[in-house]
């Protein structure tokens, strides 16, 4: 096989535009899987991925393609990419392993925010673009409009757009031909010292870390000593191979090729996505560009509902982290919730996925505290600290200023909803940057927004205000100074650490009011009156009262009722046991979730 015959490409698309279905068709057509083995969306292996219709981890498949038109034989490496903004760094590493990208756009939805974000990333990486307009078999399809959008936005030649239906298979051959003819073969020097880009990795309990690599220069083969250029760690290569899509051992991976390396690596942290593998004996002078350590953007506390399952939670997090280097956590203690972990995530979706996996795969019931961004606090002493939890905020007197993370958000919306979208951004302390009409009916808005303001329900609100038509993409754009305060919630005059939050001064009063009202509805009556207060420092800004329980009595109890009535009492008692005891106040678990869901 010559390097000339290799085509390395990704499929990029907005969510639900048909990326996975197209991948299935390509696998099917190239015979990577027999029809019997074919299962829809083969590349999305985790249950969660399939349910949510998103791809969480990138994967790579090697395919053989013989062109019917030219008779030429090719080796295709299809590198799958995650489709969500939380994983944009992983997307960028996957794209860095490619020479081309198939851009899939839904024929009725048209260009969406992640279409653009992914397209820009691909252009940044100098990739050849194969534009595909998908789902043209559906009644609402408007391929001509989509062509025009692609042309107006990205200068894509309408004649190059391939009309396809991944569902019916229409256009699949055209796409494969375009991959063969329009995407260049990899460049790179087989003679130079080894440089291979890690674009993904996963942990296998029997074999250790399996690193997914694109060899750029040189070659890698079993027996070699390799070095991770970011960490300097050295490993012995046990095996190299390719995915077809099952693992298949080969002698070596040479320049231009995509495959896997197994080298007795025990921890995914030693095979960072974006790192460069080189030959330990004959190292390259410089690593491939673009490596950076990914820092978590969102933190929250995770606590087991049953406090005695703390160790189980630790084991579960350990196991998840084997496969997910971007998940960080450290032990945390809450007066309200007991022992748990402060966990850091790439974004909110990442957080939800981890939470769901912990509950589903490890059968844990969790209390999750409100997510927090990472604030930079400049203390009066001049010291700068990172604060990822309200509990870590120093006393007001020691704070010189606080900075919060901002993102540059790109929102695509039908023109009819520009007003409501701008209103929403304004409410969320957004700063207007620009507005551009992509067509008569579609508008691209850019806003700078505090990350904390889009953490909770921004996307849901955006969808609601635009009947589901708007799309959103964002990237971190730096920290800015902000007027922020810590809002405490007191139950029966005692602050509850798990209910504290850091919030903009202008919003503190409103949020304090909403929170105490919400909690009043959640906290059941107790044997005594329970005041609920919202406070900034020692200043109470909102107050509600849960009246004392007056009557709780089963009035009817005769011979036939004894067993049943006892069951009712047992149920009541069980309910109490599930509540968290804060001082002498019993608080249901959902109170801690309430803080997440305040309008």
């Amino acid at each position, binding site marked *: 096989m010559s390097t000339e015959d290799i085509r390395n490409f990704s499929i990029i698309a907005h969510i639900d535009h048909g990326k996975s279905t197209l991948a299935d068709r390509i696998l099917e057509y190239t015979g990577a899987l027999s029809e019997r083995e074919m299962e829809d969306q083969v590349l999305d292996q985790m249950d969660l991925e399939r349910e949510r219709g998103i791809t969480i981890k990138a994967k790579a498949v090697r395919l053989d393609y013989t062109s019917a038109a030219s008779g030429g034989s090719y080796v295709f490496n299809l590198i799958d990419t995650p489709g969500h903004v939380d994983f944009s760094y992983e997307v960028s590493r996957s794209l860095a392993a490619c020479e081309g990208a198939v851009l899939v756009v839904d024929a009725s939805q048209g260009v969406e925010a992640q279409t653009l974000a992914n397209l820009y990333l691909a252009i940044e990486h100098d990739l050849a673009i194969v534009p595909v307009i998908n789902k043209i078999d559906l009644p609402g399809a408007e391929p001509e409009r989509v062509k025009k959008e692609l042309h107006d936005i990205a200068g894509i030649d309408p004649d190059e757009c391939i009309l396809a239906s991944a569902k019916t298979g229409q256009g699949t051959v055209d796409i494969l031909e375009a991959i063969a003819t329009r995407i260049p073969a990899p460049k790179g020097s087989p003679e130079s010292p080894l440089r291979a880009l890690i674009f993904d990795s996963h942990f296998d309990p029997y074999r250790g870390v399996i690193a997914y690599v694109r060899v750029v220069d040189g070659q890698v083969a079993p027996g070699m000593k390799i070095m991770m250029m970011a960490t300097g760690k050295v490993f012995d290569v046990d095996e190299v191979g390719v995915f077809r899509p099952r693992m298949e051992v080969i002698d070596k991976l040479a320049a231009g090729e995509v495959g896997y390396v197994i080298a007795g690596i025990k921890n995914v942290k030693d095979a960072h996505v974006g790192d460069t593998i080189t030959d330990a004996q004959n190292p390259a002078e410089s690593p491939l560009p673009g490596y950076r350590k990914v820092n978590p953007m969102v933190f929250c506390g995770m606590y087991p509902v049953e406090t005695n399952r703390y160790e189980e939670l630790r084991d579960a997090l350990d196991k998840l982290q084997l496969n997910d280097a971007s998940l960080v956590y450290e032990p945390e203690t809450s007066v309200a919730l007991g022992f748990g972990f402060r966990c850091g995530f790439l974004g909110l979706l990442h957080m939800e996925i981890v939470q769901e996996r912990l509950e589903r795969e490890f059968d844990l019931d969790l209390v999750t505290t409100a997510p927090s961004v990472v604030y930079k606090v400049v203390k009066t002493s001049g010291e700068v600290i990172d604060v990822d939890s309200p509990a870590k905020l120093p006393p007001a007197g020691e704070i010189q200023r606080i900075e919060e993370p901002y993102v540059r958000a790109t929102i695509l919306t039908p023109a009819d909803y520009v007003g409501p979208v701008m209103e929403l951004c304004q409410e969320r302390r957004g700063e207007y940057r620009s507005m551009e009409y992509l067509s008569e009916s579609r508008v691209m808005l850019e806003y700078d927004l505090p990350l904390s303001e889009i953490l909770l329900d921004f996307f849901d609100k955006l969808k609601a205000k635009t009947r589901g038509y708007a799309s959103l993409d964002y990237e971190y754009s730096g920290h800015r100074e902000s007027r922020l305060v810590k809002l405490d919630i007191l139950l029966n005059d005692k602050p509850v650490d798990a209910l504290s939050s850091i919030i903009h001064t202008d919003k503190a009063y409103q949020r304090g009011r909403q929170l105490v009202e919400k909690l009043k509805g959640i906290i059941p009556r107790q044997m005594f009156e329970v005041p609920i207060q919202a406070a900034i420092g020692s200043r109470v800004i909102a107050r509600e009262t849960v009246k004392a*329980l007056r009557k709780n*009595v*089963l*009035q009817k*109890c005769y011979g*036939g009722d*004894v*067993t049943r009535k006892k069951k009712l*009492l047992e149920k009541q008692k069980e309910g109490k046991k599930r509540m968290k005891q804060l001082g002498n106040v019993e608080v249901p678990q959902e109170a801690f979730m309430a803080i997440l869901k305040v309008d």
Partner: protein
Amino acid sequence: MGVDLCQEACHSGPGDGVAVYVHIPFCVRKCYYCDFNSYPLDDDDGDGDAARAYVDALVREAALNGEQLAQRGLEVRTLYIGGGTPTSLHARLLARVLAGLGRNLPVRRDAEITVEANPGTLDGAKLEAMLDAGVNRLSLGAQAMDDDLLARIGRIHRVGDFLESFAAARRAGFQNINVDLIFALPGQDLARWRETLEAVVALAPEHISTYNLVIEEGTRFGRELEAGILQPVDEELDADMYQLAIDYLAERGYEHYEISNFALPGHSCLHNITYWRNEAYLGLGAGAHSHFDGKRYSNVLLPGDYVTRIEGGLSPVAEVEQVTVETEKRDTVILGLRMLRGVLDSEFYARFGIHLREAFGPEILELSNQGLLRVNEDGDNINNIDIIALTRRGLFLANEVFMRFLP
């Protein structure tokens, strides 16, 4: 401290008697709140095939149990025929049940024999049949003295029907009548509840039971609640109504002797006291429960299944639960505390060979500190407990107290 009302029950025999409950699972129609084991009668006069078959089965079950009681030398101290609506049976069938029970069970001559009756189902013939059979206590389901409310909760009777039934019962010679009332009904306010209490007390029944409306799943009210048609009564109003009943009935000479029960002196219900003392009772009929020989039994629920089993010579018992001594201790306290006189350490010790303080010291101390339990007369001498009883506050929060005595 009030009169020890249990004296009556205790003195009726040196522990050699049992209580017997007999279930009649028929009604003219189902009330909207009712989740009892009861079914509308197919025919109007309560003398159809299903009712007859059921009555025959009951008498057979009574015969089987009667033999066993007799062998052990146990007598029936109290007999309670409840439902459903026992008086929805035709007078002929009612007489047949009563005669069958009397013939087959070793009923003491001075036994308390109660029949539940609903206004609209009572006539001279039935009253006479009951008196002839030795029934000496009648329990009438008045529920409310308010035609609008009665209609709203699906009762078949109006206030006038109740008044007629009550008068007829008195005329026939019943000298011990209970009236059942429900409060916290949809649309009922405190004033209307007071009117109901006043109207009932004006009749001077010997006994009054008052329950708050509980909306159960599977009832029409349950469905209305789910659909948002029915709003449950606010906890404050519910509590105010309960308070009013307690105060008003006390004022009129009714002794509050159990959470929901009030009686003129000497008229507390001996049968029900058996339950609250956690003593033995037998239940006959579909879905009836028994507490006997350290076990709790329940019969099959459906009348049809019950009849089939009895006719086939099979036991009607569907479930048996062995009660451990530990559970029996807890039950004795939980049920005993329902009675305002409370639980006597002397009796508890006599039964279990352990003092209340030893069995439940920490629970009692905590509840006493919370003002829910009264320990002795004078206060909280936890080291020497003679008696524990609910305080006024504890009455309203009895579940909070009971829960503490669960494992």
